[in-house]
């Protein structure tokens, strides 16, 4: 048998592409389950206080209604089981507007939705804290010790004595993840065992949290999640809707399906919090940084804390002797914030990289030159050497490919008809990590026909996990890709990390690679032979006439991983056209240059980078969730009001990957690209708007009214 051509690193088409475009890939609520009933949640219309009465009599009279479940009759759950955001119907207390307060279960979705409208609720209202702008000056240090102040040197003195400095405040609004597939679950009980079909970025995490909340052993909960219609962090930790589906199914003794509506997505599954970031950067006249202070104020939930680490990029991007990173938080009656694509780094880099652009302008220096001048030789935060770092190549190759030399450094001078044209650049980074994951390889052979099944509880957000694992296995076993069957997204499979924090590819692919090595080694030993040229597992199955064989690994990152600082780095280039009459902005060209170690599949990787870039453009120009502070409710409740970029908003998108050797963080040298694609994007766009117009906008999004 011929050894297959190396597939890792090749732009292989998605192996699940046909299934998806023909509708054959089953997402959570696509599973055909017999005798199913439908649950619809209803929500609080106040932001703080408690429920004094719930009248469900009208709802219960609606034909088809099986049960109305509220805190008055809901089964007892463990509220500390690890789900995010509370709202488990365990009591009358209301902590935010739109908190789940009950659900109707009915024969049809329409009956349940109609009946949910008929429930009458009375409240005792207390003063809701929702006005972040007003309460920001009462912010306190966070409880999370990982978010404590980090100081190096004397930033205040360096800023005071600076030859040149920028001290500005940058603001980013609340954003929502809005995956195309709203959070949806089917729950099926068999005795005291429940199967939950549910899009889950971390399959084992969903299992553990659901089991603990339901007071069950983890083994009594099975999560099935082979395909996910996007998540962007909102399907990382799981929310009340997952377990409430199981509760509804238990109460009516039937399988139940619960899908959130788009309107319910605004206050059910977290959000990216609003940040006020104060940046202070000091430099010498020739552009050497002397101080960097990055102080973030944000909001957390009234009874639980999550904040995104906006200062993270400021820790690693530049060589600066005096540094200060701080966080302050205000608890508000707004749903718990959560991980949102490029958590902290996307919003933090907007502040940092805008301030760098402002500094370059003050120094009369090219913004690329300023960045090149301040590259750190080692990680400034802990002194560890970089496992690999290509920021310089990203900037230089990007500048060449983008035509940076055509940029007029004087703002407002490049005019094309109705438009002012500008170029902007900004950098970004995201940590690279391999997390522990197990995997099984099963080989079967019928004569020369060798096939492999790969099993692990990994997840595929739609980014291409199935495909990169099939490529890895094909190379690791010496098989063509069509002989590889990938089984992921099921908690019955060997436990794995999640598709979160850019760890998915490194964790899953290394586990599969290790499993392929292990099975090959074992087959060699089993053969009892010595080989001059190492055979593949597939060759051994044939030569040794083995019908079936399997191996399992519990893969861990190498020891060297801890001795180095590992991050993916990028440089983003934007060309914007700003309409001089209307203030409308078009991103005509965008280029992301990324150094992320080994790129397993440049085709799916490019798509993922572009996806991050598009959201970054949305962050820069269109996306904002707005709260009416009188009630604490979101008034941007649909895609008509919450503006994600449309096709017409996006121009030419180019992606370059630096050919980067990564030897230390994991065996395959994969650093991850899920998050870094959005980091530095908003700043590149806003810097380009400054170059086009001379207007510096420091509060996102840059809607047309801000450029009049």
């Amino acid at each position, binding site marked *: 048998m011929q050894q297959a051509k190396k597939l890792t690193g090749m732009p292989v088409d998605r192996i699940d592409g046909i299934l998806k475009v023909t509708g054959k890939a089953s997402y959570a609520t696509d599973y055909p389950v017999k005798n199913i009933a439908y649950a619809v949640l209803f929500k609080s219309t106040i932001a703080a206080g408690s429920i004094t009465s719930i009248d469900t009599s009208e709802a219960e009279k609606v034909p088809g209604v099986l049960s109305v479940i509220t805190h008055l009759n809901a089964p007892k759950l463990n509220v500390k089981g690890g789900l995010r955001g509370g709202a488990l119907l365990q009591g009358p207390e209301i902590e935010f507007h739109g908190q789940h307060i009950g659900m109707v279960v009915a024969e049809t979705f329409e009956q349940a939705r109609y009946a949910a409208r008929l429930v009458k609720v009375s409240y005792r209202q207390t003063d809701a804290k929702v006005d972040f702008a007003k309460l920001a000056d009462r912010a306190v240090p966070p409880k999370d010790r990982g978010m404590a102040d980090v100081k190096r040197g004397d930033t205040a003195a360096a800023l005071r004595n600076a030859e040149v400095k920028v001290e500005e405040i940058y603001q980013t609004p609340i954003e929502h993840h809005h995956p195309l597939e709203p959070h949806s679950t089917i729950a099926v009980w068999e005795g005291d065992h429940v199967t939950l079909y549910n899009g889950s970025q971390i399959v084992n995490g969903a299992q553990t949290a659901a089991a603990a909340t339901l007071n069950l052993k983890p083994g009594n909960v099975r999560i099935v999640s082979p395909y996910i219609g996007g998540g962007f962090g909102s399907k990382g930790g799981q929310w009340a809707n997952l377990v409430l589906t199981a509760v509804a199914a238990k109460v009516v003794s039937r399988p139940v399906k619960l899908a959130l509506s788009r309107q319910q997505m605004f206050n059910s599954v977290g959000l990216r919090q609003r940040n006020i970031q104060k940046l202070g950067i000091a430099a010498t006249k020739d552009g050497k940084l002397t101080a960097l202070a990055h102080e973030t104020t944000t909001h957390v939930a009234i009874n639980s804390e999550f904040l995104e680490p906006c200062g993270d990029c400021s820790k690693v991007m530049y060589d600066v002797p005096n540094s200060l990173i701080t966080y302050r938080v205000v608890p508000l009656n707004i749903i718990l914030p959560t991980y949102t694509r490029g958590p902290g780094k996307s919003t933090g880099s907007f502040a940092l990289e805008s301030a760098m652009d402002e500094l370059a302008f003050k120094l009369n220096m090219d913004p690329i030159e300023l960045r090149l001048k301040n590259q750190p030789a080692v990680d400034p935060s802990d002194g560890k050497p970089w496992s690999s770092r290509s920021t310089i190549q990203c900037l230089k190759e990007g500048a060449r490919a983008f035509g940076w030399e055509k940029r007029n450094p004087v703002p407002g001078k490049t005019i094309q008809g109705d438009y002012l044209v500008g170029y902007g650049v900004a950098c970004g980074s995201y940590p690279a990590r391999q997390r522990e994951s197990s995997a099984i390889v099963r080989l079967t052979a019928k004569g020369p026909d060798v096939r492999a099944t790969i099993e692990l509880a990994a997840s595929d957000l739609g980014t291409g996990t199935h495909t990169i694992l099939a490529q890895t296995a094909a190379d690791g076993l010496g098989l063509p890709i069509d002989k590889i069957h990938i089984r992921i997204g099921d908690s019955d499979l060997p436990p794995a990390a999640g598709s979160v924090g850019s760890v998915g590819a490194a964790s899953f692919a290394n586990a599969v690679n290790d499993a392929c090595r292990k099975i090959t080694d074992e087959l060699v030993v089993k053969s009892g032979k010595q080989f001059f040229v190492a055979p593949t597992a597939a060759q051994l199955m044939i030569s040794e006439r083995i019908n079936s064989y399997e191996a399992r690994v519990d893969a861990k990152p190498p020891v060297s991983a801890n001795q180095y600082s590992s991050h993916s780095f990028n440089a983003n280039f934007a060309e914007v056209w700003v309409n001089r009459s209307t*203030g*409308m902005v078009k991103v005509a060209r965008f280029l992301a240059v990324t150094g992320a170690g080994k790129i397993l599949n440049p085709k799916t990787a490019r798509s993922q980078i572009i996806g991050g870039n598009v959201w970054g453009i949305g962050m820069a120009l269109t996306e904002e969730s707005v709260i009416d502070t009188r009630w604490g*409710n979101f*008034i*941007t*409740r649909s895609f008509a009001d919450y503006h994600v970029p449309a096709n017409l*908003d996006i121009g030419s998108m180019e992606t370059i990957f630096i050919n980067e050797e990564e030897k230390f963080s994991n065996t395959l040298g994969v650093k991850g690209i899920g998050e870094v694609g959005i980091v530095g994007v908003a700043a590149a766009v806003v810097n380009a708007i400054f170059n086009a117009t001379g207007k510096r906008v420091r509060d996102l999004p840059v809607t*047309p009214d801000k450029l009049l």
Partner: protein
Amino acid sequence: MRPFKFTPVTDAASAIALLAKNEHARFIGGGTNLLDLMKEDVERPNELIDISRLGITKVSTILTGNHSGGVSIGAVGKNADTANHPLIRQKYPLLAQAILAGASAQIRNMATNGGNLLQRTRCPYFYDVAMPCNKRQPGSGCGALEGINRMHAIFGWSEHCVAVYPSDMSVALAALGATVKVRGTAGQERSIAFTDFHRLPGNTPERDTNLAHGEMVTAIELPPDNFAGNSYYLKVRDRASYAFALVSVAAALELSGSRIVNARIALGGVAHKPWRAFAAERLLAGKEATEANFLLAAAEEMKSAKPLGHNLFKVELGKRAIVRSLQMAMNK
């Protein structure tokens, strides 16, 4: 969604009779707005009378009457078909442009012309039944007046309602001086001038139009003077497609050399109805078509603007949009 009866009809007379009989019935055409509102529990009809099969879809030249030489557009014709019809593209490019600036391709394929006229405001307080809204529930108050009103009116609002009317198509129809043909319960027909079709909110914001219950829009008539040579629809919005206007302008000029004989300017996104900029039009009549005069006209119109807490920018943006759309109308 509340339970409702679905009644398909094949002739206009029985559709009107059925509607007149039931004050909680609604006509449904494309359903692109009505069904959304029903899912949100804002509209609560107990019967939908499906008029999409009435066949009144034609775009045709009017041969008699005072609009002779103009074009009639069937009420149940689809927005996309209307915008792409050769008669509209050639004679009323302003209307084609405005229709295509609205919604998305999918929605335009479903939405009907009559339905476009009758679509309801996208004010978020109207859409959320947990919020006060005099338009949805008279007497409950206006959530937007002291609330988030960046998208709201700067002209013609009242303390009862500051919502804006969302259609792009209607802005062009207002500028072109269209009339709406309406059929009543006894089969009688009447024509309503476009500027009289929609209402300002006053103290009855629950009423969007002067259509009586039991009346059906059957056609929209465009007069023969079509401004085809010098017109432009400019829409300023938060993203390049599928967003409602911050401000839009339908501008049309009849010129004699460089002198303006007749100017038509209508604004969208600024009022409870398509806002004819009569003050600007009057100022431009008889004047030279220069940027200076366009600026004067835009400033004149905006004198009567009354911005709310979050939409002061619409005054400046409105001025710029008027000037720019008039310039674009000239450049053709």
